[in-house]
């Protein structure tokens, strides 16, 4: 078990009129090899939850007498958890990660993480080279350039490389494709899938883009007002149209299209998740008979 969460709660600004229960008795398990999605409306507590996993938000021990939070075998409910090791094992890509770039050159920026781990020059250099290549950029061309003169998409890749260079066991992505064009989104998702296969077996992705979730994840937790409304496989989840709509979220556009087609009398499977599934289905119906 990579991540184990039992009855975790979190209150923002306790004892003030701003007080708000952001997490309410959350329990979750993420296993090695999962591409785990967390979806939910704005303000449902997704970001608060994932920031616990990286100990950026500490467990409020006062309000969490019985809570369990274990990540890669490290107990985060302890008085003084081993945060340094934890951050080595858990990499976190924030929303708009390109805003955290700071160094003079791409090489230095990507090397910031490995340097903080206390790795030597040679090892750092090697990791930076590998990470930059992994996000699909040309190291020799880009290494000595300033990250601020790159394009938006390149900046984001560099920022992600900065996290991958730490070689984490668990990768947390918080709305990784926000603000990108459709092409950029697609490329980035392909990158994450490849990354999961080759380098980092466990990925947790926060998103409110259902298309992404349908395409990448094998398990999806739905959050609503600080509670987990359920953990499903994407196929299971998107048959529960009422649940999704009831929480003010959208269905994946492919599933939505299939749903309306089915409503209109076209005999397609309304639980299609990907474009190719739907296209195959339609081809079967309209040309299959004729073939």
């Amino acid at each position: 078990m990579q991540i184990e969460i039992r009855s975790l709660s979190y209150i923002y600004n306790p004892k003030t009129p701003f007080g708000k229960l952001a997490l309410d008795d959350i329990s979750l398990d993420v296993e090695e090899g999962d591409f785990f999605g967390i979806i939910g409306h704005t303000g449902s507590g997704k970001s608060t939850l994932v920031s616990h996993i990286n100990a950026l938000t500490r467990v409020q021990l006062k309000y969490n007498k019985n809570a369990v939070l274990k990540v890669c075998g490290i107990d985060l409910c302890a008085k003084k958890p081993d945060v340094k090791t934890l951050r080595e094992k858990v990499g976190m890509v924030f929303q708009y990660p390109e805003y955290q770039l700071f160094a003079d050159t791409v090489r230095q920026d990507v090397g910031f993480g490995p340097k903080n781990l206390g790795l030597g020059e040679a090892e750092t250099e090697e990791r930076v080279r590998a990470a930059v290549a992994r996000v699909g950029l040309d190291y020799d061309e880009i290494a000595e350039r300033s990250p601020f003169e790159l394009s938006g998409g390149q900046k984001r890749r560099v920022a992600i490389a900065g996290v991958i260079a730490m070689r984490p066991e668990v990768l947390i992505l918080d709305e990784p494709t926000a603000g990108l064009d459709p092409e950029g989104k697609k490329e980035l998702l392909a990158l994450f899938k490849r990354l999961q296969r080759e380098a980092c077996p466990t990925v947790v992705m926060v998103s409110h883009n259902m298309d992404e979730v349908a395409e990448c994840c094998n398990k999806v937790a739905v959050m609503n007002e600080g509670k987990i409304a359920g953990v499903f496989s994407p196929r299971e989840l998107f048959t529960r149209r009422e649940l999704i709509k009831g929480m003010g979220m959208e269905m994946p556009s492919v599933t939505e299209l299939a749903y309306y087609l089915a409503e209109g009398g076209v005999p397609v499977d309304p639980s299609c998740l990907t474009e190719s599934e739907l296209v195959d289905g339609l081809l079967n119906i309209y040309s299959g008979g004729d073939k």
Partner: protein
Amino acid sequence: MKDVVFGQIYPVDSPVHRADPRAKLLIMIIYIVTVVFVPSFMLYGIIALTLLAVILMSRVPPLKVLSGLKAIIVLAIVTFIFTVLLNDGAGKEAELATFGFFVEFGPFCICGSGLLAGGRIMCRIVLLILGPTLITLTTTPVDMADAVEWLLAPLKLFRVPVHAFGMIMSIALRMIPTLFEEAGRMMNAQKARGACFDHGNIFKRAGALIPVLIPLFVSAFKRAGDLADAMESRCYNGGKGKTRMKVLRFSVWDVLAMLFFAALLFFVLVCTYNWWGWGWTDIFKLDMIEPVVGRSVLG
């Protein structure tokens, strides 16, 4: 970072919150002048009671107001210590005669007059901070900036760009929480990459902030540019002919409150200087024990 109470309004509804910000600003100025003139503990007590009444009226928890002191507690204590140590009152004999003690060590001494003076300075600092803290807890920064602009309006005659100042101030105030939030986000992002902000000596710590400060500046400039574009595209041209969405109006209560504080100032001044030689003003200065020079020589 969490200790920054300034610019953090405590959002409840109360007469103090609803009062005209201009009235509040004027009252704050009158209040500060009053506190500076107060000569005795008894009058400090009266001011403190007035302040307490306003705090209760504002429905802000008194502890929240007191937490405004955190930032200056060190300053207040250091001021107290130095005032006590460096004040030798009316000289050793006179002090001994009046208070019965006088401790000397090297160039320093502790004496009754010094302790009283230190106490008064403490009271003064505490009251000086609490008043404005209450105002910031009950007034939105934007209202405050409007009030400042109104107060400075006469300077327009001298071609001072008062409107620009007001606008700069409202934007700056508006952006403080945003920048803090952003700084927090940047720190988190760099912490997630193994950065450490609470280890090592002061130089190391300052150096560790570079990965936070640079992105913060970059985004602040970007924000400023975006905001300027947004304002220009809405035909903002520096305030000429700009009307207000919220027109400020003094209510009867605002005027009464201002008159009350003006009266309080007047009262304190009369007690302090006693221009007309009234006897009753001394009642409020009973705790001002002045050692009489020369008396101890006789004794």
